[in-house]
């Protein structure tokens, strides 16, 4: 009996030890890694910086890997440890912040930067030399990407101000005799009717994501209010201005004309883009970044058009109002980083080199800092049109709406606009209620 007892005890101890050792074995490594980063490096020794950034496809890997390779030449003593970010609305980053486990450098958007500025999880970069140099290198008109509405600099951006356009399939339009460019809402509604009658989805939209319905609505708003949603960010403004009411009414009319698929609010990006690329949809709405995919999938069958307006005169007057607002975003630095000064320099360097890759390798003119290197690849015709026709003539970019409550209300209610029975009146009542609370 004693042997049995001893055997059982031995089994228990072995299991416990296995568990503890397997856990602690790696833990020591992690601890030693942290310690390396935690110590101020001696001259000539390696500085390890943890970078939390998107790194999962050609769109994100290319610029990041290029920037890291360039960093190796410029600052060989810096070693980058990548923590790949995923599409989770920055939940993982927020958990890092809540647990005091922030990476040295992280890439994030304005909504998260606002939260982190309050919780002191982002370094204010105003007084760093790298910030002065970055400001001097900016392309004209993109200051709002770097300088936040409160006047501070929290992150170094790589892209310029991105915006939305309407893509259309030229072959389908020619087949149905739809004239382009579509200039007015009436023409767009008529085109929707023709497309629907011929069995096409008039406009493919991934309205499962609320931002795209919001972006669509913003496109309509900017025809008569160039500041877009930014116009709602004013104390005392408790009722939607007329331009917003008109845009909601037009959106309702377009929905009733069958512009959007009945299942639009249940459609994700992959479904919506496949519909367009398979020739099942006449139009598709997304940012200018879609140009690369659409050119690859549809070649010269696809082109983009400006947002329509209530009449031709308004269209001509407003077509260079850009439906995209510059919000601060980019590579930020954690105040808890033990190598903060180096991290700031590296963050600025990564952003600048990432922009350089986007300009030289992808031919994108929509980058924040200037680069003196030439474009080294074939630029899609649609992107060239943006560079030659739109950007030099841009009259005004939409302004940033910083109030997240108002933005959330717009997101929810524009998504509802794609559903039968939700009227422009409902939209206006809901938005006025939120404006009344937030701007009083």
């Amino acid at each position, binding site marked *: *009996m004693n042997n*049995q*007892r001893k055997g*059982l005890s031995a089994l228990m101890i072995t*299991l416990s030890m*296995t*568990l*503890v050792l*397997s*856990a*602690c*074995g*790696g*833990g*020591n*490594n*992690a*601890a030693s890694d942290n310690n390396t980063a935690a110590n101020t490096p001696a001259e000539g020794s390696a500085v390890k910086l943890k970078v939390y950034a*998107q790194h*999962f*496809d050609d*769109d*994100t890997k290319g610029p990041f890997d290029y920037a890291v390779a360039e960093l190796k030449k410029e600052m060989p003593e810096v070693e980058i440890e990548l*923590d*790949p970010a*995923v*599409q*989770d609305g920055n939940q*993982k980053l927020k*958990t890092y912040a*809540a*647990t*005091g*486990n922030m990476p040295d450098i992280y890439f994030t958007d304005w909504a998260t930067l606002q939260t982190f500025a309050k919780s002191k999880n982002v370094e204010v970069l105003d007084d760093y030399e790298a910030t002065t140099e970055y400001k001097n290198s900016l392309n004209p008109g993109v200051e709002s990407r770097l300088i936040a509405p409160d006047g501070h600099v929290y992150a170094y951006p790589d892209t310029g101000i991105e915006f939305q356009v309407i893509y259309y399939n030229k072959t389908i339009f020619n087949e149905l005799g739809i004239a382009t460019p579509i200039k007015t809402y009436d023409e767009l509604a008529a085109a929707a009717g023709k497309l629907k009658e011929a069995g096409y989805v008039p406009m493919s939209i991934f309205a499962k994501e609320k931002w795209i319905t919001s972006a669509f609505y913003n496109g309509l708003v900017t025809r008569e209010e160039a500041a877009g949603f930014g116009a709602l960010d004013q104390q005392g403004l408790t009722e939607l201005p007329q331009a917003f009411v008109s845009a909601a009414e037009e959106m309702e009319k377009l929905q009733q004309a069958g512009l959007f698929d009945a299942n639009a609010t249940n459609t994700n*990006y*992959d*479904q919506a*883009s*496949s*519909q367009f*690329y*398979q020739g*099942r949809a006449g139009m598709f709405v997304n940012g200018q*970044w*879609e140009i690369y*995919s659409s050119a690859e999938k549809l070649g010269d069958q696809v082109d983009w058009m400006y947002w329509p307006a209530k009449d031709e005169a308004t269209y001509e007057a407003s077509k260079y109002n850009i439906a995209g607002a510059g919000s601060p975003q980019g590579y930020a630095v954690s105040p808890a980083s033990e190598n903060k000064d180096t991290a700031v320099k590296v963050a600025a360097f990564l952003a600048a080199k990432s922009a350089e890759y986007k300009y030289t390798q992808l031919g994108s003119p929509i980058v924040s800092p200037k680069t003196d290197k030439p474009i080294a690849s074939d630029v899609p015709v649609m992107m060239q049109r943006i560079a030659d026709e739109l950007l030099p003539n841009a009259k005004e970019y939409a302004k940033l709406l910083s109030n997240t409550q108002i933005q959330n209300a717009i997101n929810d209610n524009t998504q509802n606009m794609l559903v039968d029975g939700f009227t422009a009146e409902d939209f206006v009542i809901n938005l006025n209620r939120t404006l009344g609370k937030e701007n009083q």
Partner: protein
Amino acid sequence: MNSKTTSFRSIGSFLLQIPLWLYFIVSVYPLFWMISYSLKNNDEIFVTNPFGFPAHFRFENYVNAWTQFNIPRYFMNSFIVSIISTLCILLLALMFAFAVARMQWKFRTAVRTYMIVGMFMPLQVIMIPLAILVRDFHLTNTYGALIIPYIAIGLPFSTMVFYGFLVSIPREIEEAACIDGASIYRLFAQVILPLALPAIATIAIFQFLNNWNEFTLAYILISDENMKTLPLGLLFFQGSYSTDWGAMGAVMTIASVPMVLVYLLLSEQVERAMTVGSAVKG
């Protein structure tokens, strides 16, 4: 029996089988769908052929999954974490359930209730304190970061099931073993353990499945590429703008194989749990 009666019977038997065949199709279709979409591209999955047989077998999805994605490493990590967690859950839960179901001591009801309360704790509530604990114990990016929480999370439900199973075992069995001179440990190892095998098989399948598929904790607590488990690896195919669903389907198909094997190995025990009545003949 004439041929007319026989044909009526076979028609009747066929009609009776229809609901079963329908149930079979409904049950098997998701598996078929997963395998078929692992052989399609995004356009086929979403637009041209979402529900049917693949028009072209795109085996390159499996090649992409294998070459672009560190499957052996993620597979091994998932296997280590799931096996160790499941074994520990089984051992600890069974011992605990034995102590509260078969032994008499002062606070056993209170302790059992305390354990069961753990079932009602949403993961989101404990996430941040847990992440801080894991960091402070220097467990981040180790197997321990997942194994220990998985054990803690798996224990309440498992003890509840084992408790229910153990209380139904007749006392006479224990009394007979005691009269024959068995100690408490021998009684547990040689009498209770074999009797509880059907419940052990059920919990083993359930917990292995949970641990194999767990995503949220692994996502927060693991960032090292070498320590990632299969569910985390699936994120690899999610791009900034689009997702390679075909390759993701291929990984999911590969990842399902161990689960199917575990179920096939243990399903007989589970079925026995449903059919075995009293261990003692009256």
